[in-house]
């Protein structure tokens, strides 16, 4: 994190705050299962990636839990919005904290990479499940507004058996 500390000088606090508020807004939409509004946060080309078993894998050689480009993410959201996505009937009740936000390689005008950590508490069918890990967002500025171009989610437990993770992680 030394390099990011060097880059993010105290004068960057305004853009850091802008990024924080953006990630908090994304978290609110995800927690609220507001699928279509959440999809609106993304750029036209996109990558939504949750690797399986290992944080450092080549997704062209190894299976991922999620490896969505635009078409796949649209399919995912479309399916969740049908009446028949039973793994989300009832929907997960979610509350998440996003923290340790660091601008890694970030340009105020065009955007860049942001690292953070998260904890999600999920309640569904009377069972409370804890999900946590590390995230990297590639944010780009389009018409003055930040959008998600890539989101990588490295689950703490991506190498252990898990149940239903059909909510937005």
């Amino acid at each position, binding site marked *: 994190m030394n390099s990011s500390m060097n880059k993010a000088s105290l004068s960057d606090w305004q853009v850091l705050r802008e990024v924080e508020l953006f990630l908090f807004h994304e978290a609110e939409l995800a927690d609220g299962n507001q699928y279509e509004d959440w999809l609106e946060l993304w750029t036209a080309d996109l990558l939504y990636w*949750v690797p399986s*078993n290992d944080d450092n*894998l080549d997704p*062209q*050689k*190894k*299976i991922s839990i999620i490896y969505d480009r635009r078409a796949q993410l649209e399919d995912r959201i*479309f399916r969740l919005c049908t009446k028949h996505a*039973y793994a989300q009937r009832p929907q997960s009740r979610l509350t998440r904290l996003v923290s340790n936000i660091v601008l890694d390689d970030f340009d105020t005008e065009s955007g860049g990479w942001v690292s953070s950590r998260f904890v999600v508490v999920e309640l569904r069918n009377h069972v409370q499940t804890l999900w946590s890990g590390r995230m990297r967002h590639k944010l780009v500025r389009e018409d003055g507004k930040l959008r998600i171009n890539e989101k990588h989610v490295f689950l703490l437990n991506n190498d252990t058996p*898990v149940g239903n993770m059909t909510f937005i992680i």
Partner: protein
Amino acid sequence: MNQHIIQTSNFSGKTHWDKAALASLVEAGRIHSRVYTDPDIFELELDRIFSNSWLFVGHQSEVPSPGDFQTRVLGRTSVIMVRGKDEIVRVLVNRCRHRGAQVCETETGNTKFFRCWYHGWVYDTNGDLAEQTGDEAYDDSMDRKAMGLTPVPRVENYRGFVFASFAPEGETLTEFLGGAAAIIDLMVDASPTGELYADGGSHKTEYRGNWKLVGMDGYHPLHLHASVMETIHRDPDSGIGSTHRSNPFDDTAATYTRDFGHGHSMLDFREHRIKHYEEHCEFIKKTSGGAEYIDAMHKTHGEERARMLLSISGDPHLGLFPNMQLIHNQIRIVTPLAADLTQVEMIAVRLGGVSDEINANRLRHHESFYGPAGAGSPDDTEIFERVQRGMQAELNPWLDVSRGMAREFTDVDGSTVGRISDEVPQRGIFRHWTKLMTQS
């Protein structure tokens, strides 16, 4: 109705299941839900099925080099599948011969030795005892050659699939596989070089339900997976749609359920998919290396078999009782943990002799439906959990599996065949289950 209530009370609080009682849980077209819910029956299953039957351990490509190992759980037993320094793939019990600690806590890797941290006994990759700390304290009465890691009594390999049996004697793997062997071929022969690699990573999932709930069922897709069917209509080439042309789950489709005996069964899509061969080839050709793949398949397998293999796309949709399934692009291992808790690992395979792009595409299709965030698997496990909860109600404890009983028939190869939605696999599994659970 009264009859049902009486039968429930007969089984309530039962701790000793004699063979007659076990046999009475399975009838021709219905099954008592205790086979899924009773913890004592679960323990008996570990004794009588998982301690006797051939079990799938792993694929030899998971341990390509000497010292490569992979741990798995077979019934109650943690084992290490390891390629020894002599190149032989062994299945060794993961338990120190001294005081019983597991000697390998890592799932996969490469090593020269397995060292027990408790008192420092060391085993080599052939399983032999290599070092005993302070061995002067043991006199010559200890035969050190006999103190290696315990090998599982029988290990056999079918086309790279490694199976083991805790029974020192019994039927051969060939006898066990029977007609299902040719179905395993459908996955292996999807490679023009006949090379399959189980090195595409895996999805590890868990559900709060019985291990026998996950299996071949051609009745549920149109209903449970209605959301996927709707999604496929958006783009037939996207995700799972690319292997399910048209509607294969309609009972008028040329798709079948097939029971090979031994509890092995498949959803047989061959006849249906070959009708969509041209369409599927067009799809494959869109990928770099696609035309070469089609060409290579024809050279290796000849026209007729190549057409079938390409149409089926390496997806045998086979359930091999009790713990392996070959579905779509995955080798699936079912591990029972309790009557109401099951782990399923879905290992993505890679075809040898095809382009990286084709293999990458297969990964993407796998991800679209399977795994903890896929469009299909979570709905499956959701319903298994709902079934498990529902089965606690025992006022009327029978599950109906009679669908298509009147229309199933015996094929020339001896397998029992029904329409795609018929409960042929369920009946086949429980015929075999009853045999294993009640035999002397």
